[in-house]
C-alpha cells in the first residue's frame, strides 16, 4: 500500500475517532435534555390542568351561590313548599346566562324537584349529586347527561347550597359537566392529549400525543384526568439537531480527509520523488536529481539524495574511465602480445636469411624455401589478429527481425562444423520467438562453439540447448572442458581477456556486445560437468519489457 494511502487512511482514522466518540456523547446529551424537556412539558400540562380546575371550582362555587339567592330559585323553592310541583324544567330560567350545565333543586330527601339540564330525572334521587354536600367545596361527581342518542355518565364539578328562602330543607346543586368541549379546551390549553375517564363514565379524549408519551395523572375523585405529552415536536427538534450534528461531523470528517489528503500528498511527494529518483539511479540514470521540496527531515533527505547521486555519478564516471583505461590497457597488451608473437619468428627468420645471404651460405636457398612459408604464416596470423580487432571495433548496429530462436539454432548447428573429437549435442527447447539479427547471432554462436572447442583440445562434448525463462529466451552452450574459474568469469567478457594460451580475447567480448545489441546479456557460468556454460539471454518477442529478476 502506498505511503500516501496509508497516511490518508491514518488521517481518516484520526478524524473518525473523535467523531465516533463525540457524536454518540452529544446525541445522548441531546436525548437526556429533550427527555427532561418532555417531562417538564408534562408537568406544565398537569399544572395548567390543576389551574383550570381551580378556576372552574371558583366559577362553579360563585355561580351556584348566585343561583341559590336568585329570586327565581326562591320562587321555585317556595312553590315546592306549597305542595304544587314546579315544572320539571323550572330551573332552566335560573340557569340561563350562567356558566353551569348542572342545576337541580332537590328536597330534603335528596329527590330532584326541578332541573335545568336533566328535568327527566325529576322525581328521582340522582345518585351522583347526592354526594355533593352543602357548604363543601365543589367536588367531581358522576352526573347523567341526556342526549338524543342516549344517556351518558359524565364527570361534573358540582357544589351545593341551601336555598335560604325556603323553610324546608331545599338544596340547590349546580355545577359544570366536564364534557368533550371542556376536555378539548383543556387539550388546547395544555397542548397534551387529555383523557377523562372513570368507572362507568363515558370516556372523553381530546388532543393528540404522537411519538413517545409522558403521562401525568390528575385524580378528580370520581374521575381521573390523564394528560399525555407526545414527543413528536421534541423528536423533530431533536432529529434536526442530530442531523445538524451529523452534518457538522460529516463536514468535519470531509475537511479532515481533504486536509489529510493534502498533507499526505505534501509529505509523500518528496518521498515519491526520492523513490522515483532511486529507481532512476538503479536503472543507471546517475544524473537523476530530485527537485528540492518538502521541509525538515524530508528536505535534508532530498538534499542528501541529490548529493549522493552526484557523488555516485562522479564515482561511476571515474570508475568507467578507469575501466576503459584498463580495457584499453588489456587491448593494447593483447594487441602487443598478439603482434609480438609473430614478429619474433619473423625477425629471427629474416635475420637467419640475411646472415645466410651475407655469408653466401649455400643453404640460403634451402633456408629461404624453408622460412618463407613460415614467415607468410606469421604475417597471416598478424592479419587475422588485426581483422579481429577491426571487427570488434566496427560491429554494426543489430538489424532485428522476428525469428524462432530454437528453429534458427537448429538450422545453424546443421551447417556448423566441429572437430571429430568434439561431440555436438543439441537439446532443443520450445519455440522461442525473438527479435534478432541473424548474422550477428550466427557470429555469436560461432564464437561460443569455437571457444568451447578451444577449451577442449583433446576432445569432449559440447551441448547446445534453448529454453525459456520467464520473459527471456536462453541459448546455452556447455562444454566438458576445464571450465572458467569463478574469479575469472566476470573478466572473460572484457576485450583482450582470455584464459587460453592462444586467442585474441575478443571472441566472448564480441559476443557480449552482440548480446547487448539485442537487449540481453551474455552470462558466464559453470556447467554441472565442471566445464564452462555460456548463456545468451535475450527478451522474448512477446515480452515487451524485461521483467523483474532480469540480470
Amino acid at each position, binding site marked *: 500500500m502506498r505511503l500516501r494511502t496509508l497516511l490518508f487512511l491514518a488521517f481518516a482514522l484520526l478524524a473518525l475517532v473523535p467523531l465516533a466518540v463525540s457524536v454518540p456523547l452529544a446525541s445522548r446529551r441531546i436525548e437526556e435534555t429533550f427527555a427532561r424537556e418532555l417531562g417538564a412539558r408534562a408537568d406544565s400540562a398537569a399544572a395548567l390542568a390543576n389551574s383550570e380546575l381551580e378556576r372552574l371550582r371558583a366559577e362553579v362555587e360563585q355561580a351556584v351561590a348566585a343561583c341559590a339567592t336568585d329570586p327565581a330559585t326562591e320562587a321555585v323553592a317556595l312553590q315546592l313548599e306549597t305542595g304544587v310541583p314546579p315544572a320539571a324544567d323550572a330551573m332552566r330560567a335560573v340557569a340561563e346566562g350562567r356558566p353551569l350545565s348542572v342545576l337541580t333543586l332537590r328536597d330534603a330527601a335528596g329527590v330532584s324537584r326541578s332541573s335545568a339540564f*336533566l328535568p327527566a330525572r325529576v*322525581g328521582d334521587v340522582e345518585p351522583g349529586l347526592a354526594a355533593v354536600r352543602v357548604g363543601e367545596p365543589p367536588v367531581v361527581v358522576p352526573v347523567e347527561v341526556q342526549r338524543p342518542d342516549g344517556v351518558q355518565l359524565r364527570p361534573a364539578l358540582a357544589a351545593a347550597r341551601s336555598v335560604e328562602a325556603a323553610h324546608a330543607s331545599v338544596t340547590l346543586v349546580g355545577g359544570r359537566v366536564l364534557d368533550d368541549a371542556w376536555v378539548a379546551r383543556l387539550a388546547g390549553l395544555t397542548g397534551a392529549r387529555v383523557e377523562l375517564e372513570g368507572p362507568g363514565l363515558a370516556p372523553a379524549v381530546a388532543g393528540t400525543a404522537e411519538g413517545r408519551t409522558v403521562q401525568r395523572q390528575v385524580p378528580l375523585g370520581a374521575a381521573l384526568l390523564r394528560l399525555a405529552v407526545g414527543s413528536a415536536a421534541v423528536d423533530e427538534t431533536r432529529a434536526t439537531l442530530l442531523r445538524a450534528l451529523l452534518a457538522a461531523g460529516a463536514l468535519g470528517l470531509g475537511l479532515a480527509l481533504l486536509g489529510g489528503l493534502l498533507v499526505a500528498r505534501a509529505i509523500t511527494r518528496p518521498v515519491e520523488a526520492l523513490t522515483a529518483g532511486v529507481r532512476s539511479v538503479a536503472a543507471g540514470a546517475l544524473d537523476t536529481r530530485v527537485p528540492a521540496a518538502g521541509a525538515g527531515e524530508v528536505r535534508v533527505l532530498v538534499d542528501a539524495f541529490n548529493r549522493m547521486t552526484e557523488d555516485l555519478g562522479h564515482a561511476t564516471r571515474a570508475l568507467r574511465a578507469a575501466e576503459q583505461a584498463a580495457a584499453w590497457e588489456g587491448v593494447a597488451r593483447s594487441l602487443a602480445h598478439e603482434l609480438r608473437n609473430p614478429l619474433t619468428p619473423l625477425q629471427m627468420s629474416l635475420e637467419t636469411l640475411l646472415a645466410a645471404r651475407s655469408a653466401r651460405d649455400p643453404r640460403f636457398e634451402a633456408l629461404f624455401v624453408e622460412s618463407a612459408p613460415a614467415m607468410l604464416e606469421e604475417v597471416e596470423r598478424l592479419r587475422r589478429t588485426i581483422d579481429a580487432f577491426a571487427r570488434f571495433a566496427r560491429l554494426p548496429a543489430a538489424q532485428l527481425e522476428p525469428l524462432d530462436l530454437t528453429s534458427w539454432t537448429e538450422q545453424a548447428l546443421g551447417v556448423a562444423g566441429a572437430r571429430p573429437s568434439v561431440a555436438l549435442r543439441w537439446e532443443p527447447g520450445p519455440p522461442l520467438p525473438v527479435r534478432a539479427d541473424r548474422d550477428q547471432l550466427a557470429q555469436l554462436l560461432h564464437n561460443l562453439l569455437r571457444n568451447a572447442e578451444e577449451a577442449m583440445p583433446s576432445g569432449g562434448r559440447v551441448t547446445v540447448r534453448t529454453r525459456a525463462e520467464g520473459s527471456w529466451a536462453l541459448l546455452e552452450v556447455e562444454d566438458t572442458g576445464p571450465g572458467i574459474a569463478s574469479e575469472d568469469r566476470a573478466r572473460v567478457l572484457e576485450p583482450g581477456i582470455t584464459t587460453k594460451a592462444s586467442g585474441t580475447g575478443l571472441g566472448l567480448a564480441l559476443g557480449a556486445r552482440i548480446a547487448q545489441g539485442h537487449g540481453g546479456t551474455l552470462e558466464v557460468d559453470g556447467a554441472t560437468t565442471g566445464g564452462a556454460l555460456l548463456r545468451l539471454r535475450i527478451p522474448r518477442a512477446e515480452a515487451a519489457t524485461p521483467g523483474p529478476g532480469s540480470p
Partner: protein
Amino acid sequence: MLVLLVATGTPRPAGAAARARDGGTLRVAALPEVRADRTGETPEGAVAAALLAAPLCRLDALGHPEPLLATFQRSSDGVSVLPRPGTRFPSGAPLGPAELARAWSRALERSPAARAALAPVHDAAATLEQAARTRGTALVLQLAHPWPDLEATLCHPALAPTLGDGGTEGIGPYLPDGSDRGRASPGFPEGRPHPDAFVLSSLARRAAQRALESRSVQVLLGDGGEAGSPALFATYLVSRPAARPVVALLAPRLDRAALVRSFVGGQAAPMPGLLPPALGGPDRPGARPPPARGAGTGLLLYVADRPAQRAVAERLQILLRDAGVQLTLGPRSADALDRDWRAGQGDLALRSVLLPPLPAPALAVALELGVDVATADRERAALGALSDPAERAARARERALQLASALPVLPLYVEGLRARLDPGLIDARRDGFGLWVLDDAWWP
C-alpha cells in the same frame, strides 16, 4: 253508563239577556307549539284550524252528530254523506263527494284518528279513490260491519274537508284574509260569525298570559284549561313486537301520575287504560310488578314540536336507562312520525291522538295504533254488533281492559284542551271533543 260530556263551559252563563252583536275582531293568541300544529291534530291546533276549516259535523254533549257541512243518511249496509248544497271553499270550488273523498284520502295518509274513523268502511281507501273520480251528490260509505258510531266519528277534526295538496284550504266561519287573519264568511252554513274578523298571534307563554289578562286577546291557546272539561287527547307508547320486552321493563317503573305532574302538566291526567277516564277508562293503575333490569337498545320516535312529548320521551329514556336499556330519541314532525312509523322506523313511538268522545270509536283508535288489522276488525265488528249505545260503551270499556296487556299500546296520559278565554267572551261553547267552538262568540 252513558258518558255525559260537558258541552257547555262558557266563562259565564250564556248571556241570554244580552243581544249578540256583530262586529269587532276576535283576537286569538297561540303559544309557539300550537302554531307548530298546522294540521290541527292537537286540541288547541284543532280549535285554531276550525276557524278556517270546520269539521264535517259537530258532536253535541251526548255525542250526537250535528250536521254542519254535510248530512248523513244511513242505509242497511252503510252511510251516505251528502255535502250541503251550495257549500263552497274560499276558492269557489264546491264541496262535493269527490272533494270530500280526496280530503279524506289525504287524511288517511297522515292521521291515525282518520284511519280509525274510516276503518269500518269496506275497503275505505279504494272506496275513497273511486269516489274521488266520480260525480254525484253523496259519498256512499259501505260498511264492512255494523258500526253505529260512524257518523259521530266523521265529525273528528282530522276529517275536516280541505282542499289542495297541502290540505290548507277549508270551509270555516272565516275566510282567510292574509297570514293568520280571517274575515267573517257570510256563506258559512251556520251563518256568519259575530266578529267581523279574527287575528291569530303567536306569543310566548308569559306574553300570552299577560295579553289575556289585559284583554288584549280574547282567546289563549296552549295554556290553562278547565278541570271539568273532557280530556280526550290521549298519548300512547306504541311498540314493535320486538320491543315488547323494553315496554315490559318500562311498565313497572312508570308512574303515570308523576309523569303527568312533572312532565306533562296542564290539563292532563294519567291514563292507565286504553280508554281515558273521561270515557270510563280506569283512573288508577293496576298492581305493578317489581322493576327488573334488562339490556338492549331502542329508538323512540316522538313529535319534536310538542314539549310534553319531548319531556315524556326524555323521562322514558331515563327510566329505561335505569332498566338497562339504551334508548335513542328520534324527534320527528307529526307528519313524519306517522309516515316513518308506518314505514317501519323506530322501535317505540309516542302517539298522541284526539279520541272520539265515545268509548267504542276511542277503542278503535287504540286498535288502529296497535297495527293489528285483524284484531281491530274483529273487535270493531263485535262492538258494532251491539246496537244499544250504552251496552256498546260498556263492552268497549270491558274490552279495553282485556286488551290492555295484549295490544302493543301502552297508554300513558290524556290531556284536555289547553285554552283560556276572556271572561267577557259570550257564547263560546264546547263540542263533544271538548273543543271550543268560537263561531258564535261575541263580547259586549
